[in-house]
Protein backbone atom coordinates (compact mmCIF):
# COMPACT_ATOMS: atom_id res chain seq x y z
CA UNK A 1 0.00 0.00 0.00
CA UNK A 2 2.83 2.32 0.98
CA UNK A 3 4.52 1.56 -2.32
CA UNK A 4 1.37 2.40 -4.30
CA UNK A 5 1.16 5.82 -2.66
CA UNK A 6 4.81 6.29 -3.33
CA UNK A 7 4.37 5.49 -7.04
CA UNK A 8 1.31 7.75 -7.33
CA UNK A 9 3.20 10.51 -5.57
CA UNK A 10 6.08 10.13 -7.95
CA UNK A 11 3.87 10.12 -11.00
CA UNK A 12 2.14 13.30 -9.92
CA UNK A 13 5.34 15.06 -9.00
CA UNK A 14 6.91 13.82 -12.22
CA UNK A 15 4.24 15.44 -14.27
CA UNK A 16 4.15 18.70 -12.39
CA UNK A 17 7.86 19.29 -11.86
CA UNK A 18 10.94 18.18 -13.67
CA UNK A 19 12.92 15.77 -11.52
CA UNK A 20 16.64 15.99 -10.96
CA UNK A 21 18.48 13.10 -12.65
CA UNK A 22 21.90 11.99 -11.50
CA UNK A 23 23.80 9.77 -13.92
CA UNK A 24 25.81 6.83 -12.59
CA UNK A 25 28.30 5.40 -15.06
CA UNK A 26 31.18 4.17 -12.95
CA UNK A 27 30.89 1.08 -10.81
CA UNK A 28 32.90 0.05 -7.80
CA UNK A 29 36.29 -1.62 -8.09
CA UNK A 30 35.29 -3.91 -5.23
CA UNK A 31 34.30 -7.51 -5.78
CA UNK A 32 31.12 -9.16 -4.55
CA UNK A 33 31.76 -10.95 -1.27
CA UNK A 34 30.41 -14.49 -1.00
CA UNK A 35 30.03 -16.64 2.11
CA UNK A 36 30.49 -20.31 1.23
CA UNK A 37 28.85 -21.92 4.22
CA UNK A 38 29.84 -25.57 4.83
CA UNK A 39 26.91 -27.71 3.71
CA UNK A 40 25.04 -29.53 6.43
CA UNK A 41 24.73 -33.32 6.31
CA UNK A 42 22.10 -35.83 7.28
CA UNK A 43 22.87 -37.86 10.39
CA UNK A 44 24.14 -40.98 8.62
CA UNK A 45 26.38 -39.12 6.14
CA UNK A 46 30.05 -38.23 6.59
CA UNK A 47 30.39 -34.62 7.67
CA UNK A 48 33.31 -34.16 5.31
CA UNK A 49 30.99 -34.40 2.27
CA UNK A 50 29.29 -31.18 3.29
CA UNK A 51 32.52 -29.24 3.80
CA UNK A 52 34.03 -30.71 0.61
CA UNK A 53 31.14 -29.55 -1.57
CA UNK A 54 31.26 -25.99 -0.24
CA UNK A 55 35.08 -26.01 -0.63
CA UNK A 56 34.83 -27.13 -4.28
CA UNK A 57 32.18 -24.49 -5.03
CA UNK A 58 34.41 -21.87 -3.39
CA UNK A 59 37.45 -22.99 -5.44
CA UNK A 60 35.43 -22.77 -8.65
CA UNK A 61 33.95 -19.34 -8.03
CA UNK A 62 37.24 -17.87 -6.85
CA UNK A 63 39.24 -19.40 -9.73
CA UNK A 64 39.34 -16.28 -11.91
CA UNK A 65 39.41 -13.72 -9.11
CA UNK A 66 35.92 -12.46 -9.85
CA UNK A 67 34.68 -12.72 -6.23
CA UNK A 68 35.92 -12.29 -2.72
CA UNK A 69 35.12 -14.85 -0.03
CA UNK A 70 34.29 -14.61 3.64
CA UNK A 71 36.69 -16.62 5.76
CA UNK A 72 35.01 -19.55 7.46
CA UNK A 73 36.44 -18.47 10.83
CA UNK A 74 34.59 -15.16 10.58
CA UNK A 75 31.17 -16.74 10.10
CA UNK A 76 28.73 -16.28 12.97
CA UNK A 77 26.69 -19.37 12.12
CA UNK A 78 26.61 -22.33 9.71
CA UNK A 79 22.98 -22.53 8.61
CA UNK A 80 22.02 -25.36 6.27
CA UNK A 81 18.37 -24.48 5.77
CA UNK A 82 16.36 -21.31 5.21
CA UNK A 83 14.77 -21.57 8.67
CA UNK A 84 18.18 -21.17 10.31
CA UNK A 85 19.30 -18.36 8.01
CA UNK A 86 19.43 -14.81 9.40
CA UNK A 87 20.32 -12.01 7.01
CA UNK A 88 21.71 -9.78 9.77
CA UNK A 89 24.45 -12.37 10.54
CA UNK A 90 25.84 -11.83 7.04
CA UNK A 91 25.00 -8.15 6.58
CA UNK A 92 27.23 -7.20 9.52
CA UNK A 93 30.10 -9.04 7.87
CA UNK A 94 29.70 -7.14 4.60
CA UNK A 95 28.63 -10.24 2.68
CA UNK A 96 26.79 -9.78 -0.62
CA UNK A 97 25.78 -13.40 -1.25
CA UNK A 98 25.58 -16.49 0.89
CA UNK A 99 25.45 -20.11 -0.32
CA UNK A 100 24.09 -22.77 1.98
CA UNK A 101 23.07 -26.38 1.41
CA UNK A 102 22.51 -29.84 2.78
CA UNK A 103 23.58 -33.35 1.78
CA UNK A 104 20.96 -36.06 2.15
CA UNK A 105 21.28 -39.77 1.57
CA UNK A 106 19.05 -41.51 -0.97
CA UNK A 107 20.23 -45.12 -0.66
CA UNK A 108 23.00 -47.27 0.71
CA UNK A 109 24.85 -47.32 -2.66
CA UNK A 110 26.28 -43.86 -2.20
CA UNK A 111 23.57 -41.89 -3.99
CA UNK A 112 23.17 -38.44 -2.54
CA UNK A 113 20.68 -35.62 -2.86
CA UNK A 114 22.25 -32.20 -2.46
CA UNK A 115 19.99 -29.21 -1.91
CA UNK A 116 21.39 -25.67 -2.10
CA UNK A 117 20.23 -22.05 -1.78
CA UNK A 118 21.74 -18.70 -2.71
CA UNK A 119 20.77 -15.55 -0.81
CA UNK A 120 21.21 -11.92 -1.79
CA UNK A 121 22.03 -10.35 1.56
CA UNK A 122 21.56 -6.71 0.53
CA UNK A 123 18.15 -7.33 -0.95
CA UNK A 124 17.27 -9.86 1.75
CA UNK A 125 15.90 -12.40 -0.70
CA UNK A 126 16.60 -15.97 -1.74
CA UNK A 127 17.57 -15.78 -5.40
CA UNK A 128 18.27 -19.42 -6.20
CA UNK A 129 17.51 -22.87 -4.89
CA UNK A 130 17.92 -26.30 -6.33
CA UNK A 131 18.57 -29.96 -5.76
CA UNK A 132 21.00 -32.34 -7.47
CA UNK A 133 21.13 -36.08 -7.24
CA UNK A 134 24.55 -37.64 -7.66
CA UNK A 135 27.04 -40.08 -6.30
CA UNK A 136 29.48 -39.58 -3.47
CA UNK A 137 32.34 -40.33 -5.91
CA UNK A 138 31.39 -37.32 -8.01
CA UNK A 139 31.34 -34.50 -5.50
CA UNK A 140 33.53 -32.34 -7.79
CA UNK A 141 31.17 -32.80 -10.72
CA UNK A 142 28.16 -31.95 -8.53
CA UNK A 143 29.99 -28.87 -7.22
CA UNK A 144 30.68 -27.70 -10.78
CA UNK A 145 26.98 -27.86 -11.63
CA UNK A 146 26.07 -25.86 -8.50
CA UNK A 147 28.92 -23.40 -9.22
CA UNK A 148 27.67 -22.82 -12.77
CA UNK A 149 24.14 -22.11 -11.56
CA UNK A 150 25.29 -19.77 -8.79
CA UNK A 151 27.64 -17.93 -11.18
CA UNK A 152 24.88 -17.46 -13.75
CA UNK A 153 22.47 -16.17 -11.12
CA UNK A 154 24.96 -13.62 -9.80
CA UNK A 155 26.54 -12.43 -13.05
CA UNK A 156 23.93 -13.19 -15.68
CA UNK A 157 26.61 -15.06 -17.63
CA UNK A 158 26.84 -18.77 -18.32
CA UNK A 159 28.98 -20.69 -15.84
CA UNK A 160 32.20 -22.06 -17.34
CA UNK A 161 33.45 -24.35 -14.60
CA UNK A 162 32.91 -27.52 -16.63
CA UNK A 163 34.76 -26.20 -19.68
CA UNK A 164 38.21 -27.45 -20.71
CA UNK A 165 41.42 -26.02 -22.03
CA UNK A 166 43.66 -27.40 -24.77
CA UNK A 167 47.32 -26.32 -24.88
CA UNK A 168 50.80 -27.34 -25.98
CA UNK A 169 53.56 -28.07 -23.49
CA UNK A 170 57.14 -27.85 -24.62
CA UNK A 171 58.86 -29.62 -21.71
CA UNK A 172 62.32 -29.57 -23.29
CA UNK A 173 63.80 -28.57 -26.61
CA UNK A 174 62.58 -31.66 -28.46
CA UNK A 175 59.40 -32.77 -26.66
CA UNK A 176 56.04 -31.30 -27.53
CA UNK A 177 52.80 -32.48 -25.96
CA UNK A 178 49.25 -31.77 -27.06
CA UNK A 179 47.25 -31.65 -23.80
CA UNK A 180 43.76 -30.97 -22.50
CA UNK A 181 42.67 -30.35 -18.91
CA UNK A 182 39.79 -29.01 -16.86
CA UNK A 183 39.72 -25.22 -16.79
CA UNK A 184 41.32 -25.26 -13.32
CA UNK A 185 44.30 -27.20 -14.72
CA UNK A 186 43.24 -30.49 -13.12
CA UNK A 187 42.63 -33.83 -14.91
CA UNK A 188 45.33 -33.21 -17.50
CA UNK A 189 45.37 -35.62 -20.43
CA UNK A 190 48.19 -35.87 -22.96
CA UNK A 191 46.67 -36.43 -26.40
CA UNK A 192 49.82 -36.65 -28.46
CA UNK A 193 53.58 -36.37 -27.93
CA UNK A 194 56.05 -35.49 -30.67
CA UNK A 195 59.65 -34.46 -31.08
CA UNK A 196 58.49 -31.96 -33.73
CA UNK A 197 56.56 -28.76 -32.94
CA UNK A 198 52.81 -28.89 -32.36
CA UNK A 199 50.67 -25.76 -32.62
CA UNK A 200 47.26 -24.11 -33.14
CA UNK A 201 44.84 -26.46 -31.32
CA UNK A 202 41.13 -25.80 -31.85
CA UNK A 203 38.05 -27.55 -30.42
CA UNK A 204 35.22 -28.90 -32.52
CA UNK A 205 31.91 -27.27 -31.48
CA UNK A 206 30.71 -30.57 -29.95
CA UNK A 207 33.92 -30.80 -27.86
CA UNK A 208 34.56 -34.31 -29.19
CA UNK A 209 37.54 -33.55 -31.43
CA UNK A 210 40.56 -31.29 -31.59
CA UNK A 211 42.30 -30.05 -34.73
CA UNK A 212 45.95 -29.02 -34.53
CA UNK A 213 49.10 -28.60 -36.59
CA UNK A 214 51.98 -31.01 -36.28
CA UNK A 215 55.37 -30.92 -38.00
CA UNK A 216 56.01 -34.62 -37.38
CA UNK A 217 56.36 -35.31 -41.13
CA UNK A 218 58.63 -32.36 -41.77
CA UNK A 219 55.97 -29.91 -43.03
CA UNK A 220 53.05 -28.22 -41.29
CA UNK A 221 50.18 -30.71 -41.41
CA UNK A 222 46.69 -30.52 -39.88
CA UNK A 223 45.43 -33.42 -37.79
CA UNK A 224 42.00 -34.01 -36.31
CA UNK A 225 42.05 -36.15 -33.20
CA UNK A 226 39.02 -37.83 -31.69
CA UNK A 227 39.10 -37.37 -27.92
CA UNK A 228 37.31 -40.54 -26.92
CA UNK A 229 39.17 -42.97 -29.21
CA UNK A 230 42.40 -41.00 -29.55
CA UNK A 231 42.33 -41.68 -33.31
CA UNK A 232 44.17 -39.10 -35.46
CA UNK A 233 43.40 -38.19 -39.03
CA UNK A 234 45.37 -35.88 -41.34
CA UNK A 235 43.54 -33.40 -43.54
CA UNK A 236 44.68 -34.23 -47.03
CA UNK A 237 44.81 -30.70 -48.37
CA UNK A 238 46.68 -30.10 -51.59
CA UNK A 239 49.08 -27.39 -50.55
CA UNK A 240 52.71 -27.59 -49.55
CA UNK A 241 51.81 -26.66 -45.97
CA UNK A 242 48.49 -26.52 -44.14
CA UNK A 243 48.14 -24.65 -40.87
CA UNK A 244 45.99 -22.62 -38.43
CA UNK A 245 42.82 -24.78 -38.49
CA UNK A 246 39.66 -23.28 -36.97
CA UNK A 247 36.36 -25.12 -36.79
CA UNK A 248 33.28 -23.32 -38.06
CA UNK A 249 30.56 -22.79 -35.38
CA UNK A 250 28.30 -25.29 -37.19
CA UNK A 251 31.11 -27.87 -37.24
CA UNK A 252 30.75 -28.54 -40.97
CA UNK A 253 33.95 -26.95 -42.20
CA UNK A 254 37.37 -25.79 -41.12
CA UNK A 255 38.99 -22.49 -42.08
CA UNK A 256 42.69 -22.99 -42.61
CA UNK A 257 45.81 -21.60 -44.25
CA UNK A 258 47.12 -23.42 -47.27
CA UNK A 259 50.36 -22.47 -48.90
CA UNK A 260 50.81 -23.25 -52.56
CA UNK A 261 54.37 -22.54 -53.68
CA UNK A 262 55.11 -20.55 -50.52
CA UNK A 263 52.22 -18.08 -50.62
CA UNK A 264 49.82 -18.66 -47.68
CA UNK A 265 46.13 -17.89 -48.31
CA UNK A 266 42.89 -18.56 -46.43
CA UNK A 267 40.76 -21.53 -47.52
CA UNK A 268 37.68 -23.35 -46.31
CA UNK A 269 37.82 -27.11 -45.99
CA UNK A 270 34.55 -29.02 -46.09
CA UNK A 271 34.86 -31.92 -43.64
CA UNK A 272 32.18 -34.05 -45.31
CA UNK A 273 33.11 -33.41 -48.95
CA UNK A 274 36.86 -33.08 -48.20
CA UNK A 275 37.08 -30.15 -50.62
CA UNK A 276 38.97 -26.86 -50.47
CA UNK A 277 37.42 -23.48 -51.31
CA UNK A 278 39.73 -20.51 -51.73
CA UNK A 279 38.79 -17.37 -49.80
CA UNK A 280 41.78 -15.06 -50.32
CA UNK A 281 44.20 -14.75 -53.20
CA UNK A 282 46.92 -12.24 -52.50
CA UNK A 283 50.70 -12.20 -52.82
CA UNK A 284 50.91 -11.08 -49.16
CA UNK A 285 50.79 -13.52 -46.25
CA UNK A 286 47.20 -14.27 -45.17
CA UNK A 287 47.00 -16.32 -42.00
CA UNK A 288 45.34 -16.96 -38.58
CA UNK A 289 41.70 -17.21 -39.68
CA UNK A 290 38.83 -17.27 -37.16
CA UNK A 291 35.07 -17.52 -37.62
CA UNK A 292 32.46 -14.99 -36.62
CA UNK A 293 29.82 -16.50 -34.29
CA UNK A 294 27.23 -16.47 -37.11
CA UNK A 295 29.64 -18.35 -39.47
CA UNK A 296 29.23 -15.60 -42.11
CA UNK A 297 32.61 -13.90 -41.78
CA UNK A 298 36.20 -14.76 -41.10
CA UNK A 299 38.77 -12.53 -39.48
CA UNK A 300 42.40 -13.05 -40.57
CA UNK A 301 45.84 -11.50 -40.35
CA UNK A 302 47.47 -10.18 -43.51
CA UNK A 303 50.61 -8.20 -44.24
CA UNK A 304 49.21 -6.95 -47.58
CA UNK A 305 49.43 -3.35 -46.35
CA UNK A 306 53.08 -3.72 -45.38
CA UNK A 307 52.56 -4.72 -41.73
CA UNK A 308 50.42 -7.39 -40.04
CA UNK A 309 46.87 -6.08 -39.75
CA UNK A 310 43.45 -7.65 -39.22
CA UNK A 311 40.95 -8.04 -42.04
CA UNK A 312 37.47 -9.47 -42.26
CA UNK A 313 36.13 -11.40 -45.22
CA UNK A 314 32.56 -12.36 -45.99
CA UNK A 315 32.61 -16.09 -46.78
CA UNK A 316 29.83 -15.73 -49.41
CA UNK A 317 30.57 -12.47 -51.20
CA UNK A 318 34.31 -12.60 -50.41
CA UNK A 319 34.24 -8.85 -49.76
CA UNK A 320 37.10 -7.81 -47.53
CA UNK A 321 37.34 -5.05 -44.94
CA UNK A 322 40.36 -3.86 -43.00
CA UNK A 323 39.61 -3.84 -39.25
CA UNK A 324 42.76 -2.37 -37.67
CA UNK A 325 44.81 0.69 -38.58
CA UNK A 326 46.47 1.80 -35.36
CA UNK A 327 49.91 0.35 -34.63
CA UNK A 328 52.19 -1.62 -36.89
CA UNK A 329 51.29 -5.04 -35.49
CA UNK A 330 47.77 -6.37 -35.01
CA UNK A 331 47.44 -10.13 -35.33
CA UNK A 332 45.72 -13.32 -34.17
CA UNK A 333 42.25 -11.76 -34.14
CA UNK A 334 39.26 -13.52 -32.65
CA UNK A 335 35.61 -12.48 -32.35
CA UNK A 336 33.83 -12.06 -29.04
CA UNK A 337 30.83 -14.40 -28.63
CA UNK A 338 28.48 -11.48 -29.44
CA UNK A 339 30.31 -10.86 -32.74
CA UNK A 340 30.44 -7.09 -32.11
CA UNK A 341 34.01 -6.86 -30.85
CA UNK A 342 37.33 -8.54 -31.48
CA UNK A 343 40.40 -9.29 -29.38
CA UNK A 344 43.89 -9.71 -30.75
CA UNK A 345 47.62 -9.25 -30.16
CA UNK A 346 48.56 -5.60 -30.48
CA UNK A 347 52.22 -4.71 -30.93
CA UNK A 348 53.45 -1.29 -29.92
CA UNK A 349 57.02 -0.17 -29.17
CA UNK A 350 58.27 -3.74 -28.87
CA UNK A 351 55.49 -4.75 -26.46
CA UNK A 352 52.97 -7.36 -27.59
CA UNK A 353 49.78 -7.17 -25.55
CA UNK A 354 46.23 -8.43 -25.72
CA UNK A 355 43.84 -5.74 -26.92
CA UNK A 356 40.16 -5.41 -27.75
CA UNK A 357 38.28 -3.29 -30.23
CA UNK A 358 34.68 -2.80 -31.25
CA UNK A 359 34.36 -3.61 -34.94
CA UNK A 360 32.61 -0.32 -35.61
CA UNK A 361 35.11 1.77 -33.66
CA UNK A 362 38.74 2.74 -34.28
CA UNK A 363 39.64 2.78 -30.60
CA UNK A 364 41.89 -0.04 -29.38
CA UNK A 365 41.90 -0.89 -25.67
CA UNK A 366 44.92 -2.75 -24.31
CA UNK A 367 43.98 -5.27 -21.63
CA UNK A 368 47.21 -6.82 -20.42
CA UNK A 369 50.29 -5.33 -18.82
CA UNK A 370 52.76 -8.06 -19.75
CA UNK A 371 54.80 -7.55 -22.91
CA UNK A 372 55.17 -10.86 -24.75
CA UNK A 373 51.56 -12.01 -24.98
CA UNK A 374 50.29 -14.31 -27.71
CA UNK A 375 47.51 -16.73 -28.68
CA UNK A 376 44.56 -15.23 -26.75
CA UNK A 377 41.48 -17.39 -26.27
CA UNK A 378 38.18 -16.34 -24.75
CA UNK A 379 35.82 -18.11 -22.34
CA UNK A 380 32.58 -19.22 -24.00
CA UNK A 381 30.66 -16.70 -21.88
CA UNK A 382 32.84 -13.90 -23.28
CA UNK A 383 34.09 -12.70 -19.91
CA UNK A 384 37.65 -14.01 -19.50
CA UNK A 385 40.63 -14.10 -21.85
CA UNK A 386 43.46 -16.58 -21.32
CA UNK A 387 46.69 -16.02 -23.23
CA UNK A 388 50.21 -17.35 -23.42
CA UNK A 389 52.94 -15.10 -22.10
CA UNK A 390 56.50 -15.37 -20.88
CA UNK A 391 58.39 -14.95 -17.66
CA UNK A 392 62.01 -15.02 -18.81
CA UNK A 393 62.26 -18.04 -21.09
CA UNK A 394 59.41 -19.91 -19.38
CA UNK A 395 56.01 -19.69 -21.05
CA UNK A 396 52.90 -19.78 -18.89
CA UNK A 397 49.20 -19.00 -19.24
CA UNK A 398 47.89 -15.72 -17.91
CA UNK A 399 44.31 -14.54 -17.73
CA UNK A 400 42.27 -11.41 -17.33
CA UNK A 401 38.61 -10.61 -16.83
CA UNK A 402 37.28 -8.11 -19.33
CA UNK A 403 36.45 -5.51 -16.69
CA UNK A 404 40.15 -5.64 -15.77
CA UNK A 405 39.35 -6.22 -12.08
CA UNK A 406 41.10 -9.57 -12.01
CA UNK A 407 44.41 -10.76 -13.48
CA UNK A 408 45.61 -14.26 -12.77
CA UNK A 409 47.97 -16.97 -13.96
CA UNK A 410 47.04 -20.59 -14.35
CA UNK A 411 48.94 -23.24 -12.33
CA UNK A 412 52.44 -23.81 -13.71
CA UNK A 413 53.14 -26.93 -15.71
CA UNK A 414 56.32 -28.90 -16.12
CA UNK A 415 57.50 -26.96 -19.15
CA UNK A 416 56.64 -24.01 -21.29
CA UNK A 417 52.89 -23.75 -21.95
CA UNK A 418 51.65 -22.21 -25.21
CA UNK A 419 48.72 -22.01 -27.61
CA UNK A 420 45.74 -22.21 -25.22
CA UNK A 421 42.31 -22.95 -26.71
CA UNK A 422 39.20 -22.69 -24.55
CA UNK A 423 36.57 -25.36 -25.23
CA UNK A 424 32.97 -24.44 -26.08
CA UNK A 425 30.22 -24.95 -23.49
CA UNK A 426 28.60 -28.35 -23.26
CA UNK A 427 25.12 -28.15 -24.73
Amino acid at each position, binding site marked *: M*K*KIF*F*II*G*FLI*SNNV*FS*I*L*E*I*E*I*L*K*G*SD*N*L*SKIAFVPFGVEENIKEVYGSKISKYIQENLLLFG*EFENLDKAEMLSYPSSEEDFYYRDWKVLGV*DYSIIGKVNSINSFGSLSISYSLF*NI*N*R*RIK*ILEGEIVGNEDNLKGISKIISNRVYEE*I*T*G*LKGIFDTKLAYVINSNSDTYQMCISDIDGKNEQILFTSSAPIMSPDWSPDRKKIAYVSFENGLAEIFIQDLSSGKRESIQALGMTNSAPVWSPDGKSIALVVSFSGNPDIFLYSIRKKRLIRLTDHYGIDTEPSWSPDSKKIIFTSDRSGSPQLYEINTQSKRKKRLTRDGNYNARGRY*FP*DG*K*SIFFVHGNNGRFQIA*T*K*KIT*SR*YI*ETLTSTSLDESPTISP*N*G*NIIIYATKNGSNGYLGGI*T*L*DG*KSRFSLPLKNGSVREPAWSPLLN
Partner: protein
Amino acid sequence: MMNKVLTSLNTFFFVILSVSIIFSLFSIPKLDVEETKSTRVNFYEVMQQEEKSLKTYPSNKKLKKEANSTYENNDKREIDNISKIPKFEINKSHLKNEISKIKLSRERKDILRVSTIIQNRISSIWIKPNSLSDTLSAKVLINLAPSGEILNFIMTEPSTNKSFNDSILSAMNKLSFFEEILVLERKLFEENFRNFKLVFKSSGEID
Protein backbone atom coordinates in the same frame (compact mmCIF):
# COMPACT_ATOMS: atom_id res chain seq x y z
CA MET B 1 -10.84 92.68 -47.77
CA MET B 2 -11.43 91.44 -44.25
CA ASN B 3 -11.22 87.84 -45.49
CA LYS B 4 -7.88 88.47 -47.14
CA VAL B 5 -6.48 89.93 -43.89
CA LEU B 6 -7.70 86.93 -41.91
CA THR B 7 -6.26 84.44 -44.41
CA SER B 8 -2.87 86.16 -44.37
CA LEU B 9 -2.92 86.16 -40.52
CA ASN B 10 -3.76 82.48 -40.53
CA THR B 11 -0.90 81.75 -42.87
CA PHE B 12 1.44 83.83 -40.70
CA PHE B 13 0.50 81.97 -37.50
CA PHE B 14 0.76 78.68 -39.26
CA VAL B 15 4.26 79.48 -40.44
CA ILE B 16 5.24 80.66 -36.93
CA LEU B 17 3.87 77.42 -35.42
CA SER B 18 5.66 75.23 -37.94
CA VAL B 19 8.95 77.01 -37.39
CA SER B 20 8.62 76.77 -33.61
CA ILE B 21 7.89 73.03 -33.85
CA ILE B 22 10.95 72.50 -36.02
CA PHE B 23 13.09 74.48 -33.57
CA SER B 24 11.76 72.63 -30.60
CA LEU B 25 12.55 69.33 -32.29
CA PHE B 26 16.17 70.30 -32.87
CA SER B 27 16.50 71.66 -29.37
CA ILE B 28 15.97 68.13 -27.76
CA PRO B 29 19.34 67.15 -26.31
CA LYS B 30 20.90 64.23 -28.18
CA LEU B 31 22.24 61.29 -26.12
CA ASP B 32 25.80 60.77 -27.08
CA VAL B 33 26.25 56.99 -26.70
CA GLU B 34 29.05 55.47 -28.63
CA GLU B 35 28.82 51.75 -29.09
CA THR B 36 32.52 51.32 -28.86
CA LYS B 37 32.58 52.88 -25.40
CA SER B 38 29.76 50.77 -23.92
CA THR B 39 30.75 47.82 -21.72
CA ARG B 40 28.92 44.72 -20.73
CA VAL B 41 28.86 43.95 -17.01
CA ASN B 42 29.11 40.29 -16.18
CA PHE B 43 27.91 39.05 -12.83
CA TYR B 44 31.38 38.27 -11.56
CA GLU B 45 32.50 41.73 -12.58
CA VAL B 46 29.56 43.15 -10.70
CA MET B 47 30.82 41.43 -7.61
CA GLN B 48 34.22 42.98 -8.05
CA GLN B 49 32.77 46.35 -8.98
CA GLU B 50 30.46 46.27 -5.98
CA GLU B 51 33.39 45.75 -3.68
CA LYS B 52 35.42 48.40 -5.50
CA SER B 53 32.62 50.91 -5.43
CA LEU B 54 32.17 50.36 -1.72
CA LYS B 55 35.80 51.13 -1.20
CA THR B 56 35.95 54.12 -3.55
CA TYR B 57 32.58 55.63 -2.70
CA PRO B 58 31.76 54.63 0.89
CA SER B 59 28.67 56.83 1.17
CA ASN B 60 26.68 59.40 -0.76
CA LYS B 61 27.49 62.05 1.84
CA LYS B 62 31.15 61.42 1.43
CA LEU B 63 30.74 61.56 -2.31
CA LYS B 64 28.95 64.89 -2.12
CA LYS B 65 31.61 66.15 0.24
CA GLU B 66 34.26 65.06 -2.16
CA ALA B 67 32.31 66.64 -4.98
CA ASN B 68 32.03 69.91 -3.13
CA SER B 69 35.68 69.92 -2.32
CA THR B 70 36.49 69.26 -5.92
CA TYR B 71 34.22 72.14 -6.96
CA GLU B 72 35.93 74.27 -4.44
CA ASN B 73 39.31 73.23 -5.72
CA ASN B 74 38.02 73.75 -9.19
CA ASP B 75 39.58 70.47 -10.29
CA LYS B 76 38.15 69.55 -13.67
CA ARG B 77 39.44 65.97 -13.53
CA GLU B 78 37.58 65.21 -10.29
CA ILE B 79 34.38 66.68 -11.72
CA ASP B 80 34.64 64.19 -14.56
CA ASN B 81 34.93 61.35 -12.03
CA ILE B 82 31.88 62.53 -10.12
CA SER B 83 29.93 62.76 -13.34
CA LYS B 84 30.51 59.04 -13.74
CA ILE B 85 28.70 58.18 -10.49
CA PRO B 86 25.15 58.75 -11.72
CA LYS B 87 25.91 56.54 -14.75
CA PHE B 88 26.82 53.66 -12.40
CA GLU B 89 23.60 54.15 -10.40
CA ILE B 90 21.54 53.93 -13.56
CA ASN B 91 22.73 50.28 -13.88
CA LYS B 92 21.25 49.29 -10.51
CA SER B 93 18.34 47.39 -12.03
CA HIS B 94 20.82 45.58 -14.18
CA LEU B 95 22.82 44.80 -11.08
CA LYS B 96 19.75 43.39 -9.35
CA ASN B 97 19.35 40.97 -12.23
CA GLU B 98 22.96 40.04 -12.03
CA ILE B 99 22.73 39.49 -8.27
CA SER B 100 19.75 37.18 -8.73
CA LYS B 101 21.79 35.39 -11.35
CA ILE B 102 24.59 34.97 -8.84
CA LYS B 103 22.12 33.55 -6.34
CA LEU B 104 20.85 31.10 -8.92
CA SER B 105 24.35 30.06 -9.86
CA ARG B 106 25.14 29.49 -6.15
CA GLU B 107 22.08 27.27 -5.87
CA ARG B 108 23.14 25.43 -8.97
CA LYS B 109 26.58 24.96 -7.51
CA ASP B 110 25.07 23.49 -4.32
CA ILE B 111 22.91 21.12 -6.34
CA LEU B 112 25.90 20.05 -8.41
CA ARG B 113 28.06 19.57 -5.34
CA VAL B 114 25.52 17.35 -3.58
CA SER B 115 24.76 15.49 -6.82
CA THR B 116 28.45 14.72 -7.26
CA ILE B 117 28.72 13.41 -3.70
CA ILE B 118 25.68 11.17 -4.25
CA GLN B 119 27.12 10.02 -7.58
CA ASN B 120 30.42 9.06 -5.95
CA ARG B 121 28.75 7.26 -3.08
CA ILE B 122 26.66 5.13 -5.42
CA SER B 123 29.64 4.44 -7.67
CA SER B 124 31.64 3.20 -4.69
CA ILE B 125 29.09 0.51 -3.83
CA TRP B 126 27.60 -0.44 -7.19
CA ILE B 127 29.23 -3.65 -8.41
CA LYS B 128 28.58 -3.57 -12.12
CA PRO B 129 28.06 -6.98 -13.71
CA ASN B 130 30.94 -8.10 -15.93
CA SER B 131 31.07 -8.09 -19.69
CA LEU B 132 28.06 -5.96 -20.52
CA SER B 133 28.58 -5.31 -24.17
CA ASP B 134 25.16 -3.74 -24.65
CA THR B 135 24.40 -0.18 -23.73
CA LEU B 136 22.00 -0.58 -20.84
CA SER B 137 20.17 2.01 -18.81
CA ALA B 138 17.91 1.81 -15.76
CA LYS B 139 16.27 4.56 -13.71
CA VAL B 140 15.62 4.52 -9.99
CA LEU B 141 13.39 7.07 -8.27
CA ILE B 142 14.36 7.97 -4.75
CA ASN B 143 12.20 9.55 -2.06
CA LEU B 144 14.24 11.29 0.64
CA ALA B 145 13.38 12.74 4.03
CA PRO B 146 14.90 16.15 4.92
CA SER B 147 17.17 14.23 7.32
CA GLY B 148 18.70 12.46 4.31
CA GLU B 149 17.01 9.16 5.09
CA ILE B 150 15.96 7.15 2.05
CA LEU B 151 12.25 6.70 2.63
CA ASN B 152 11.71 4.61 -0.46
CA PHE B 153 13.11 3.83 -3.88
CA ILE B 154 11.71 2.16 -6.93
CA MET B 155 13.14 1.07 -10.27
CA THR B 156 10.81 2.91 -12.63
CA GLU B 157 12.60 2.08 -15.87
CA PRO B 158 14.45 -1.24 -15.64
CA SER B 159 16.93 -2.32 -18.31
CA THR B 160 16.50 -5.46 -20.39
CA ASN B 161 19.29 -7.18 -18.47
CA LYS B 162 18.26 -8.93 -15.25
CA SER B 163 21.71 -9.03 -13.65
CA PHE B 164 22.19 -5.33 -14.42
CA ASN B 165 18.91 -4.51 -12.65
CA ASP B 166 19.75 -6.83 -9.74
CA SER B 167 23.14 -5.19 -9.27
CA ILE B 168 21.46 -1.76 -9.02
CA LEU B 169 18.88 -2.96 -6.51
CA SER B 170 21.64 -4.60 -4.45
CA ALA B 171 23.59 -1.34 -4.42
CA MET B 172 20.51 0.68 -3.49
CA ASN B 173 19.79 -1.68 -0.61
CA LYS B 174 23.23 -1.00 0.83
CA LEU B 175 22.27 2.65 1.38
CA SER B 176 19.92 4.08 3.96
CA PHE B 177 21.06 7.72 4.28
CA PHE B 178 22.38 10.57 2.19
CA GLU B 179 23.78 12.72 5.00
CA GLU B 180 25.08 15.19 2.42
CA ILE B 181 21.55 16.52 2.02
CA LEU B 182 21.72 18.13 5.47
CA VAL B 183 23.92 20.98 4.25
CA LEU B 184 21.29 22.08 1.74
CA GLU B 185 18.79 24.85 2.31
CA ARG B 186 15.30 23.45 2.88
CA LYS B 187 13.94 25.15 -0.25
CA LEU B 188 16.67 23.59 -2.39
CA PHE B 189 16.08 20.20 -0.84
CA GLU B 190 12.33 20.33 -1.48
CA GLU B 191 12.80 21.48 -5.05
CA ASN B 192 15.56 19.06 -6.05
CA PHE B 193 16.23 16.22 -3.66
CA ARG B 194 12.89 15.34 -2.07
CA ASN B 195 12.35 13.15 -5.15
CA PHE B 196 15.15 12.58 -7.60
CA LYS B 197 16.27 9.97 -10.10
CA LEU B 198 19.42 7.94 -10.45
CA VAL B 199 20.14 6.92 -14.03
CA PHE B 200 22.41 3.87 -14.06
CA LYS B 201 24.20 3.36 -17.34
CA SER B 202 26.39 0.66 -18.73
CA SER B 203 28.19 2.10 -21.67
CA GLY B 204 29.71 -1.36 -22.27
CA GLU B 205 33.04 -2.63 -21.11
CA ILE B 206 34.61 -2.30 -24.50
CA ASP B 207 34.05 1.14 -25.88
